[in-house]
């Protein structure tokens, strides 16, 4: 008879099932990564394809604006390209996090790489923003002339490409925080 045997029930410390909340966090991270990838790649492409040539020219000076002319904008393009490549390469890892149970070590690797990429992307975006601000407004004290008064469409394009990059910085910071929450959960 079974009445003689004691039943052993497991509490939450016994079998550790993957909670629904952890799975939701992993899916949200995957989606954020895809959105950030699209933002960075579009910023890089938009900045790299700007050029404007003014319809008049003198004998010695050529009126042409390109992203190559300003080293901060070149750095911006390179940083965005690197971060978009990183994001597409870590998409499979993020997908594995949705499925697998014990993800702590790979999540820590992902946090380390994400922190480095946030630093790179924030640096590129901010330096390009400083140069774009200078191109829009100029500076009286240093006699730096506002370039945008001549190159209108060039200025519009480079200002627009900054937006995607800043959104991607915010998304990457959110990704770091979500990974930290997922590491600290009890599962």
């Amino acid at each position, binding site marked *: 008879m079974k*009445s*003689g045997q*004691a*039943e*052993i*029930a*497991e*509490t939450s*410390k*016994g079998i550790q099932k993957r909670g629904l909340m952890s799975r939701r966090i992993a899916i949200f991270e995957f989606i954020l990564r895809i959105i950030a990838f699209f933002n960075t790649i579009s910023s890089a492409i938009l900045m790299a394809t700007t050029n404007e040539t003014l319809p008049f020219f003198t004998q010695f000076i050529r009126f042409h*604006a390109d992203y190559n*002319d*300003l*080293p*901060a904008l070149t750095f911006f393009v390179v940083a965005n390209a690197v971060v978009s490549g990183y994001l597409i390469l870590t998409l499979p890892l993020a997908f594995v996090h949705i499925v697998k149970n014990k993800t*702590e070590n790979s999540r*820590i690797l992902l*946090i*380390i790489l994400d*922190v*480095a990429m*946030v*630093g790179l992307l*924030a*640096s*590129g*975006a*901010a*330096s*390009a*923003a*400083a*140069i774009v*601000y*200078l*191109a829009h407004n100029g*500076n009286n*004290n*240093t*006699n*730096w*002339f506002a*370039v945008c008064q001549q190159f209108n469409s060039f200025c519009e394009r480079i200002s627009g490409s900054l937006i995607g990059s800043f959104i991607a*910085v915010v998304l990457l*910071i959110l990704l*770091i*925080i979500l*990974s*930290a*929450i997922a*590491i*600290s*959960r*009890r599962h």
Partner: protein
Amino acid sequence: MDIEKAGSRREEEEPIVQKPKLDKGKGKAHVFAPPMNYSRIMEKHKQEKVNMASWKRGVAIFDFVLRLIAAITAMAAAAKMATTEETLPFFTQFLQFSADYTDLPTLSSFVIVNSIVGGYLTLSLPFSIVCIIRPLAVPPRLFLILCDTAMMGLTMMAASASAAIVYLAHNGNSSSNWLPVCQQFGDFCQGTSGAVVASFIAAALLMFLVVLSAFALKRST
């Protein structure tokens, strides 16, 4: 998230709970039969917890020291930039040639952001002390990693924007006809460059702090 009070409740909590099976017809209550290695399981569990608490406490102490250094560095960067000014020894009838951090709005935003970050790092020192005292607690560490990540992004942005402006002041740009200012204002350029370097060091320290907190949040070794 569960806040674990050290030593108060957890030792008495049994990992395996047994439900009594009451046989109503027979009038007998059944005996709890713990497994054979019950005490050994409890000992191993307690030892693991003590080990984890000790290495997390070490990480928290390192975190506190790094936080102190980063706070000092950030405030030093802000102070250096704010006190750098140079006045050239010649002047015309109408103009006096002086350079200050207020002449460039990017540099004044640098001063503001670095002082905010320095103030935040000082105010987060008590949270770090709480993490040393209670190494197994999760909410202080989570709060620290959240704020640290945001502040790291902010300080990296301010430092790199100022670095772009300082690079322009050093080298100028021929395509847009921007002349390098540093050939006239040598001391000003040196002071601002030093402040930018200090700010980058503070940003790197903040990055390392984020990674350290992520390590300390692990629940299993």
